[in-house]
């Protein structure tokens, strides 16, 4: 007798548990306002990344096309993956030959966005930008030269 009662109890509790489950999903289908889908390319205008989001390394240029990079290679040393390559040139400053930045080469394809180069920079010349649409059709396009053509170092940065 007991087993018979248990048999029906099992069925009852089994069905009840199924109905609680159905209620949860039923709640969501009747509340379409709770839909959380973001339609990405359509919402590009309103989509705003968080300010700290690490998308890629950029060299900060001001409106006079001047940057703060001295070419000290601190970021190159700090980078774990060889993402950053600093190519130097020799410039004359007051008659002395001084090392200066020629090309700031940045291999985006190797970058892991760890952000170690940013605190390593003694002159705060680089920062992480919020961009995230990095897809290109050719891998070589991911290798970028960050200092803009014709740009030069700001006065007073050593």
């Amino acid at each position, binding site marked *: 007798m007991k087993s018979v009662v248990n048999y029906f109890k099992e069925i009852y509790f089994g069905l009840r548990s199924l109905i609680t489950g159905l209620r949860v999903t039923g709640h969501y289908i009747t509340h379409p306002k709770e839909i*959380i889908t973001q339609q990405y390319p359509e919402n590009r205008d309103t989509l705003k990344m968080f300010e700290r989001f690490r998308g890629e390394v950029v060299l900060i240029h001001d409106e006079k096309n001047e940057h703060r990079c001295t070419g000290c290679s601190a970021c190159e040393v700090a980078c774990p993956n060889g993402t950053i390559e600093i190519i130097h040139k020799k410039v004359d400053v007051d008659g002395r030959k001084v090392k200066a930045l020629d090309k700031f080469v940045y291999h985006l394809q190797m970058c892991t966005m760890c952000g170690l180069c940013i605190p390593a920079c003694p002159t705060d010349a680089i920062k992480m930008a919020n961009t995230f649409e990095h897809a290109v059709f050719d891998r070589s396009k991911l290798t970028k030269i960050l200092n803009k053509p014709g740009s030069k170092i700001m006065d007073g940065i050593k």
Partner: protein
Amino acid sequence: MEETITTALESQEYFINMGPQHPSTHGVLRLVLSLDGEIIRKVEPHIGYIHRSIEKMCEHDSYQQIVHLTDRMDYLSCHINNEAVCLAVEMGLQVEIPERVKVIRTIIGELTRLSSHQLWWGVMGMDLGAITTFLYGFRDRELITDIFEETCGARLTMNYNVPGGLMFDIHPNFQKRTKDFVTYFKKKLPEYDDLLSNNVIFRERTIGIGKLSKEDAISFGVTGPTGRASGFSCDVRKHYPYSAYDRVQFKEILRTEGDCFARYQCRIAEMWESLSIIEQLIDNIPEGPFKAPTKAVIKLPKGEWYQKVETARGEFGVYIISEGQKSPYRLKFRSPGFSNLSALDHMARGCKIADLVAIMSTIDLVIPDIDR
């Protein structure tokens, strides 16, 4: 000789390659199953498909650079992995860490654990055929990744810790967002119970499946919720408190059944504990610097250090042998998934294929963590 031939002929066993591309191996794990009908006679894991020799890379990297590599091991509890390396290096350097850092690390660590468990819950449901849970798990996880993105700058591989402290201070919105999340998630967690924990089909699928005794759990080195479900008290947060775990109240969740359902319950209960830890700390973040002063080039003295932390999967250990250079001489990551996986064969023998899927998802394997 004749005997072996006859047994080989009589046996109904056949082999199946499960993986490396299979929906429920959660990555590139390959299992060679010996099957008799649907019953599993032997499971042989073949790993290493994404072995990146992180340990070898660490032998050439500076200590700051090592931290970001650990993101790529157990990517679901990356913050806790980072913390382990940082704690080990800090132990070697003998620097005193500001209180603020300890508390923030603990909060973010618990958030990481929550997000990992949410993903596990979703995937567990999906492995058992309830695809909707997957989306619900990700829905709640999204809020945590938002918190991470705002404060740490990335959603998954956060790399927020540096030896000596944090990379930058918490975002002004951090506390508010976290509190919002805690209130939100407290409402959603009972839904998890409604959908899976109390569901009769789910219970039938998990209760009594994949049993692991306490002795076996210890012998196999199975830690984390998987080990604790077998009654192996192995919560590093409780036994060897690090960061701010010595000042918060929380229970170590222990079960004795050791089956899939016990492991499931362990993780669900851990989510409640994590929520309570966050609630205790979120209003009490002490003021102060977010980083202890360290040198730009860290050189550990000669010696060796072992630091273990509790990730979402179990005991994660970092073992550094230093010869006084700027890179470690040897660095070993004791990953929880690796040991937990070794017990899979023991748990799965005699089960059906469908049970193997349930067992695998309750072990909560993350393959990069195993392969390193």
